[in-house]
Every structure is written in structure tokens, then in C-alpha cells.
């Protein structure tokens, strides 16, 4: 191990920290947007309105059968074309992630909504609440609560997924690590370091999920 120089990590910490901030920020925004859009998709699928539920199901199944990298390529190509002007890599990536993750979140929210007893909907209806009020105040809060561990787990996967913006050179933690690795010629040190950082964050997240689950079970 004499040939290795881990000092390079210390030197480039500020640069890596900027990358990590971008990763976390992208993760956060994509989770929020993904859950919001995913919930709408789930409601559409369960709406009982055939064209609407078919459309939502088609979207979800389409997105779920293509790789995230391809979706990222799609939106890097499409977004500037549709808007007629470039809006920067970050926003293209964010749109790609929200649209992609929404398909996965919608499946989670669908299961969550179905886990709420039919009687709860009846109780809402019986007091004259309308469809949106029942969803907003009765069903979704319970669905959300039941699904929190799975939603967080999906958030951890999403955080790992953000490393794929590497393919379009958006400077997240992964891209930053690989820039340092190449310019300093320290591939081994940098990639091992990246692995450790991702591991610590994701493992902490999964421990948190485990605690949530055991707390919910009691």
C-alpha cells in the first residue's frame, strides 16, 4: 500500500464537498417532486376513470422498463429542444429524475392508498367530504404514514442513482471524485473514498429505516 497517497483526498475536500452538496440537493428535490407526481399518478390509477388509469399505468410501465441513464440522455436532449433554449444541466437532470422516480413512487403510494381500509373512505363520504377532501385529509396522510419506511428506502436508492449524472458530466459527488481521480492520477484512492462516503450515508439511512420499522411494529 506504500504507493497510495490518501493525502489527495484531504486536498480536494472542498471540491468534493461541493459535489456532495449537489448530490444531496438533487436527491432532495427529486424526492419531493417524485412523491408529488407519483401520488398524482397513483390517484389517477385508482380513480376508476378508465382512460385516466390506463394512461397512468402506461406511463409507469414505460418508465419502469427503461434504464435511468437512457432517461437522463432523453431529457438532456429533449428539454433544451422543447424550451428552445438551454436551461443548464442541473435542471435537465432534475426533470429526468422527477419523471423517472415518480413512476417508482407511484407504485409505493398506490400500495399505501390500498392499505387504507375502505371503511375510512365510507366514513369520509358519510360526513359529506368530497373526493379531494377525503384523499387530502383521510386517505393520503394514512397512506403516507404506512409507507414511510419504503419511501425512505426508495430515497436511499435515489441518492445512489444520482451518481449516474456522471454520464452527462454534471458535477455531483461522483463526477467530482472522478475529476480528482483523473487529474491527480489517484483512481484507487478516490474511488475507494467515494465508496466509503456513499456507504456511510446509505448505511446510516438503512439503519434509520430499520428503526422506523421496529417503531411502527410496536
Amino acid at each position, binding site marked *: 500500500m506504500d504507493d497510495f497517497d490518501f493525502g489527495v483526498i484531504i486536498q480536494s475536500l472542498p471540491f468534493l464537498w461541493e459535489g456532495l452538496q449537489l448530490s444531496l440537493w438533487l436527491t432532495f428535490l427529486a424526492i419531493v417532486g417524485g412523491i408529488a407526481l407519483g401520488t398524482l399518478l397513483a390517484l389517477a390509477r385508482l380513480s376508476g376513470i378508465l382512460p385516466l388509469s390506463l394512461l397512468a399505468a402506461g406511463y409507469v410501465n414505460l418508465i419502469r422498463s427503461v434504464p435511468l441513464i437512457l432517461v437522463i440522455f432523453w431529457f438532456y436532449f429533449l428539454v433544451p429542444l422543447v424550451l428552445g433554449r438551454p436551461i443548464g444541466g442541473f435542471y435537465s437532470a432534475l426533470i429526468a429524475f422527477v419523471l423517472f422516480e415518480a413512476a417508482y413512487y407511484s407504485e409505493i403510494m398506490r400500495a399505501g392508498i390500498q392499505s387504507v381500509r375502505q371503511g375510512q373512505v*365510507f366514513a369520509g363520504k358519510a*360526513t359529506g367530504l368530497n373526493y379531494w377532501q377525503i384523499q387530502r385529509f383521510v386517505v393520503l396522510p394514512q397512506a403516507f404514514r404506512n409507507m414511510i419506511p419504503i419511501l425512505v428506502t426508495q430515497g436511499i436508492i435515489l441518492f445512489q442513482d444520482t451518481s449516474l449524472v456522471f454520464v452527462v458530466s454534471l458535477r455531483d459527488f461522483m463526477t467530482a471524485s472522478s475529476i480528482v481521480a483523473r487529474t491527480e492520477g489517484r483512481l484507487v484512492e478516490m474511488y475507494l473514498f467515494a465508496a466509503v462516503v456513499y456507504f456511510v450515508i446509505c448505511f446510516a439511512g438503512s439503519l434509520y429505516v430499520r428503526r422506523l420499522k421496529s417503531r411502527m411494529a410496536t
Partner: protein
Amino acid sequence: MIEIEKISKWYGDFRVLTDCTTSVEKGEVVVVCGPSGSGKSTLIKCVNGLEPVQEGRISVEGQEVTAKSTNLTKLRSRIGMVFQHFELYPHMSVLENLCLAQEKVLKRSRDEAVSRAEELIERVGLSEHLTKFPSQLSGGQQQRVAIARSLAMDPIAMLFDEPTSALDPEMINEVLDVMVGLAKDGMTMMVVTHEMGFARKVADRVIFMDEGAIVEDRETQAFFSNPESDRAKDFLSKILNH
């Protein structure tokens, strides 16, 4: 006040209600009983449109439940309903359970809703539990909260769908007492229940159902002293002889 005329209902090929006709007058208490699977719960859920019917018509105070043009949510807000499994909202405190529809449907102010909730929760004898969550209450207490929640909407009639059948025996009376009080105050009530003591005490009429049809619909006294059909006799002997 509630008119049910020749309603029929199918789940696919399976017929759950057959030509049911009956009515409930203002201030009347009607008990619906019958063996399980006889369609009594389905019938009561049709009254406020929770279950659609394929044939016949139902009207409440002259408003047709079965008509497409009817604003069902508005109609439902005027008919209270109490469920077998309470269906309190588990993520809200007792107070919030009572206030939600008052504020969202009746558009009452927060203060109005809270003071009405406090009034009603006192009436069902649970004032000290206002800030608790449903899971912290016993089954009997939960059902009393559920009754208060319905009353908060100032309903013109109340529907009860087996309100005591999910309760442990020692809790049944606390719920029945609240219901008896309501009946004495002149509330119009339609109650699906097996509690024949309750029926004897407060019901004006008893409807006996079997296999999706109304078999008997008579004055309480007459029903208990002299049931006409063999099926009602059979049912009564099974339910009363232990």
C-alpha cells in the same frame, strides 16, 4: 322522511337485494335485523348512497339519492352514519375527528367547530379524552366518539351499521345508552343490529331481512310477540335463547 321503493342490487351476477320497500318517518326509530349475509348492512349503505343500487329509488326528505343529478356529498352531510368498525381517523385526535367535516363541509369557523365538538363529546361522556388519539381509547369509547362525530354535523337522521357487533360484551351497553338517549330526544334513526333488547326498548318498528329481501316490517311489539314468518321465528329463537 326516508323512502325506499323497490330497490334491487347485484354484485355481478349475485343478487344482494331484492325489491326492498320500506320507509322511516320523522322521529321514528327503525331496527333492521336478520341473519348475517341477509343484506341488511348493504341496505343501510344504500340510504346515503355509499352503495349504488341498480333498480328502484330511494329518497331522503324528498331528495332522490338514486338520481344522477343529486349532489350526494351535500345529502350525505345531512345524514349521520355510524360504522361497525368505528372508522375514526387514526391519524387525528378525537377533537380533530369531530372538527374535520364541520370545518371542511359545513364551513364552520374553528371556534364554532371546537365548541360544538366539546359540547358533543361531553354528551357522550368523554370530555377528558378530547386530545387523545383513537388508538388510546377502548372500543366502546371509540364508538361513542364516532357517534359524536356524526352528531357534530347536525344530521336530520342517523344510520347505524351494526354499531356494537365489533365490541367486547362489557362495552356494548355504554354505546347503547348513548343511542337510547338519542332516540328519546326524537332523532330519526335506522339501526342495523342484533341487540334485541335495544329494539324492544326504543324501536317503533322492526324490519326483518333474509336473503336480500324484507321479510317482515312491523310494529316492534307485534314483531316480538307474534312474528309471522317461520324464518323470523327461527331467527328470534336462535338469538334470544341464550
